[in-house]
């Protein structure tokens, strides 16, 4: 039995904000988040007819987003390695610094825990995003990540442990994380 036809416009209106939020915490910066979210829905618009209705639509969208994120990280990693080689080869070259407003946004991002999460392995990072940013259920996370439920729980546990270790190595503790302005600080005690 074929799934009912999808209203692409309506689905985009309904799910764009949540996909953008997930892209934001996944990518670690707002420019990549915009690109990721846009590309997710472009893929959706082009291939929505392939949706077979075995899962809910938003889990299917998260699956597209995670695949795109994985691909972008691989590309960035290769590009970074190439740039590193070029940088080391040309120490006298005049390398430009990022613009001032970009530096402000990056520091804003660095105030959040998600900046540390971005350094975790893919499996742990994605599990943490889906659970604590998107508030998805464990079964839904297993469906999106296409792994057993036990694996999801393991990744979440080890992801948080690794996150704590990263912060300890950086000399930070959760009690000393700078708070955002106007943020409720009760949970930080």
């Amino acid at each position, binding site marked *: 039995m074929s799934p009912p036809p999808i209203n692409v416009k309506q689905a985009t209106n309904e799910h*764009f904000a949540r996909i*953008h939020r997930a892209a934001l915490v996944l990518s670690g910066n707002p420019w990549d988040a915009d690109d990721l979210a846009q590309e997710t829905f*472009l893929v959706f618009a082009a291939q929505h007819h392939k949706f077979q209705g075995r899962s809910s639509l938003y889990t299917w969208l998260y699956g597209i987003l995670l695949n795109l994120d994985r691909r972008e990280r691989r590309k960035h990693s290769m590009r970074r390695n190439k740039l590193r080689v070029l940088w080391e080869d040309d120490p006298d070259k005049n390398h430009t610094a990022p613009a001032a407003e970009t530096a402000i946004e990056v520091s804003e991002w660095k105030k959040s*825990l998600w900046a540390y999460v971005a350094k975790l392995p893919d499996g742990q990072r994605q599990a943490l995003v889906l659970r604590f940013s998107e508030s998805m259920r464990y079964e839904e996370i297993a469906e999106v990540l296409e792994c057993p439920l036990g694996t999801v729980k393991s990744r979440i546990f080890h992801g948080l442990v690794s996150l704590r270790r990263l912060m300890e190595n950086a000399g930070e503790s*959760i009690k000393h994380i700078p708070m955002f302005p106007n943020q409720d600080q009760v949970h930080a005690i």
Partner: protein
Amino acid sequence: MPFSVHSHDDEWPDVEPFDDPISNLSDADIDEALLSDDLLEFAQQLSDDAAHLQACYPAERPSKIESAINEKPSEATKSPPKKKFRWAALAFGAGTACLLIAVSVIYYGAAPQRPDSPIANSDHAVEAGDSLAVHQVGVERYQTSTAAFEASISPQPIHENTPPTITEIGNATGPQLEALYDYLEDEDKVVRLSI
């Protein structure tokens, strides 16, 4: 998927929650079973940070998505053109392959046969050629094979007035001709040469 429960991590729970059936547990219960207090604190902080970042960087739908949504490609027309193209490409490839095979068969089938050795067309020529080949070595060798040469020149009965025939001598090499000449001179034979 099995994984080891023997960890060096001090925070590892005493029980094995990862393998427990969770059908009766809520997600919050699972979090509490899995995570210690400080890890739960991390989890809460992550949720709060995500909400804050979303407020800092709200989602704005770019125009590209709008135009992509409004295009509305027809589902019915998506796959058939691709299938037709595949069949057409397959038919073209098969036809080209058949044509090439046919051309090859015709070309190589109609090509004239490579001519054999000039003295291979007749029994006499073959036998004479063998003898001449021996004589290529030099005059000295022809003397040892003279008898074979005599026998090979003419398998037909030799009549007194019918000299033996050596055919295809036009392609003989210099040493061959020289050896033949010497033979003829020495043996005082009468032969008929056709060049």
